[in-house]
Structure formats: C-alpha cells, structure tokens
C-alpha cells in the first residue's frame, strides 16, 4: 500500500531531516532510494517534491551542501547544519507526539508485533 501525496507532503521535511541526521551526507537520488528501501516501497518521494524541499531547507540554513564532480556532472551532497540537527530532533519529536494524538483521536489499536 502506498500513501497519499497529502500525507507524504506533510512529513517530507521531517523525513529528509531525519535521514540526513542518520546518514551524515546524502545526494538527491540517494535520499529517494533510502526512503524506498526503509519503507519497503510504501513511500516513494518524487523528484518534484524532493528538490523544492531540499532547496527550501538550504535557504533556511538547516542543511549545508558540498559538491563533487562525477566526470562532467556535479553531484550535490546535502548534510545537516548545527541548527538542522536541533530541528531534526524537534521535528521527529513533534511527529511522534502527533501520531500518538491521532492514534488516540481515531481510536486506532496498535498492532502487536
């Protein structure tokens, strides 16, 4: 089952910040693949959503970039700035709290694993 665009849009920033917190530095394609891998293809981040968000995070100084030449093309690596690291923790905490609230609001019974 894949999730609706609305759900993914609302959590995209948190997903990217958390991935960068766990992986030091990543490039765009790597981020999309990591998300696919970690969610068993249930979440697929589109390029159209990924790059505007990455550029906004960069403008907000939450991520920093470094470039590397791969032959003739440039690969841009994104990594968290000190502010970004703090923001990543806050965002994950906020989302966890939101999910708890939704579970209680929608009366969802957590699955026993």
């Amino acid at each position, binding site marked *: 089952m894949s999730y609706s665009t609305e759900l993914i849009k609302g959590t995209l920033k948190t997903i990217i910040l958390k991935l960068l917190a766990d992986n030091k530095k990543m*490039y*765009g394609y790597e981020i999309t693949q990591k998300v696919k891998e970690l969610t068993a293809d249930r979440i697929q981040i589109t*390029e159209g959503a990924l790059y*505007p968000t990455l*550029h906004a995070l960069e403008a907000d100084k939450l991520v920093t970039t470094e*470039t590397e030449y*791969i032959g*003739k*093309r440039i690969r841009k690596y994104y990594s968290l700035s000190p502010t970004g690291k703090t923001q990543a923790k806050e965002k994950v905490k906020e989302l966890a709290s939101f999910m708890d609230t939704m579970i209680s609001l929608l009366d969802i019974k957590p699955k026993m694993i």
Partner: protein
Amino acid sequence: MYSLNEQQIDFILRDINARGVRLESLQNDLLDHICVIIEQQIEKEEDFEQCYESTIRAFYRQELREIEEDTIFLLACRNRLTLSRTLFFILLFTIFIGPFIYPDIAWLVTSGPTAGWNIPLDIWASTVVYSLFPLLILLVLLLTPERLDPLIPAKSKVLLGVRPFIKIIAAR
C-alpha cells in the same frame, strides 16, 4: 555498469534548460539524478534516448519546470510577512488614507494650542473629497465577512503589489 558520455550529459543538461529549468543549482541536482537512473537502467548506447525520455517523463505531471516553480514558491513563502486581517487593513488605511489626513494633522500641529479643532474649510474639504472614496472601499472590504468573499485578501494583496510576500491570516 554503463557510464554516460559527455555528449549525452550535455544533451540532458540542454534539454533540462530547454524545458524551462533555469536555476543552476536545480539543473545540477536534476542532471545528476537523471544520469544515475539512466546509468542503472541502460545497457547499451542505442537505448539512451528512449531511456532518457521515459526517465524524464516520471519527473513531472505537466511540465518539468513545475519543479522550479515549486522551488521558487517555497523560497518566496519563507519570507512572507504574516499579518492578521485587521492589521492588514490598518496598513492599507495608513497607506491610502494617511496622506489625505496629513494636511489636517499638519495644521493642528502648526496652528498652536489656541486654534483648537477649527480646521479651515478648504483643508477639511480636500480631506473628505480625496479620502472618502478610498475609505468607503476599504470599509466595504473590511466589513465584508470573509466567508462571503474569500477573494478579498487576494485582491488586497494584489492592490499592494507585494502579494508573494504577504500572507493574510483570519482575524482573531
């Protein structure tokens, strides 16, 4: 694994540019992303164009430049000034009505304490004539409930000419 040659990379970059993506940083991101996908899918040079077409098609709904438009929109949103509806209309009032009230205030300040509120008729008249019409428009805009005309904030933003930078929030 197949590796794209310089001509193929130039071809992709030219095409990204031709499709309306102008931000260099975004062009580089897209170029690298497309190249990685193609290099993983392609096995021989003859497949390049077909593989490129199917790859690039998956990047957008209508046109590739949507990605750049979304990027610019998100960047513009960062700098938006958030105003309440009431504060926004106070700002409009100051801009549109303020200059017409200025002669009255100037007269009150310069005429000294003995003159009181006896503002000369010509100053009163010009204030009323010039400020009445914009004042009425602003009052109608302000007093119309938002639910009856949801376009009011948008119209007002256009009026100010700084639409991308101002976000109107419902008055509390």
